[in-house]
């Protein structure tokens, strides 16, 4: 069965303090790894899809990378508006569903 483990569970950064979130996964025949952002009271918002090891995607202060075992979401010079829960999900093999991790809760303070 597909498994996704995210770390850390929570992360507190000061504005401008760069860091990385980790997503370790186990899946047979990866078809895609997805990163989402979720704000309180809202549904998850799509950020990136990565399909194969070595692939990288960037959007503003965020950069996602992928290896055969894990993905990192790098946050460069974060701002308070980057505060949210970041979710990682995978799909693979013949599965129709995405399997989600429990997320990393990020707080960025001034």
């Amino acid at each position, binding site marked *: 069965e597909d498994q*996704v483990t995210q770390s850390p569970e929570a992360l507190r950064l000061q504005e401008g303090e760069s860091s990385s979130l980790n997503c370790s996964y186990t899946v047979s025949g990866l*078809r*895609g790894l*997805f990163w*989402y952002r979720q704000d309180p*009271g*809202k*549904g*998850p*918002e*799509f950020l990136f*899809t990565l399909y194969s090891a070595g692939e990288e995607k960037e959007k503003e202060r965020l950069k996602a990378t992928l290896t055969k075992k894990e993905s990192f979401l790098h946050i460069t010079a974060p701002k308070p508006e980057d505060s949210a829960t970041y*979710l990682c*999900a995978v*799909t693979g093999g013949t599965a*129709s*569903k*995405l*399997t*989600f*991790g*429990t*997320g990393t809760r990020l707080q960025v303070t001034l």
Partner: protein
Amino acid sequence: GAGVSQSPSNKVTEKGKDVELRCDPISGHTALYWYRQSLGQGLEFLIYFQGNSAPDKSGLPSDRFSAERTGGSVSTLTIQRTQQEDSAVYLCASSLVRDSPLHFGNGTRLTVT
């Protein structure tokens, strides 16, 4: 453009009552998913619809849960004889095709008293 719409946004019901949750996906999206999110838990897959194919119901936790998708568009998730452990946020998502990014609604927060 309109995103995924879910209604109601909040529902409080008494234990033992039936509830219906509605999802209006993005027009043209062929895939539709229902997930459940409990406090401190990850998103739990419930059911997946793809076009006219038979749905993947493998995530439904019991036979009290059922879902349908009419005309390849609107979907309804029904929970019969609700229990307190059914309290959660129920999220609907749609995607253009299988493996395309999911677009989520803001969910229905269900509270069973």
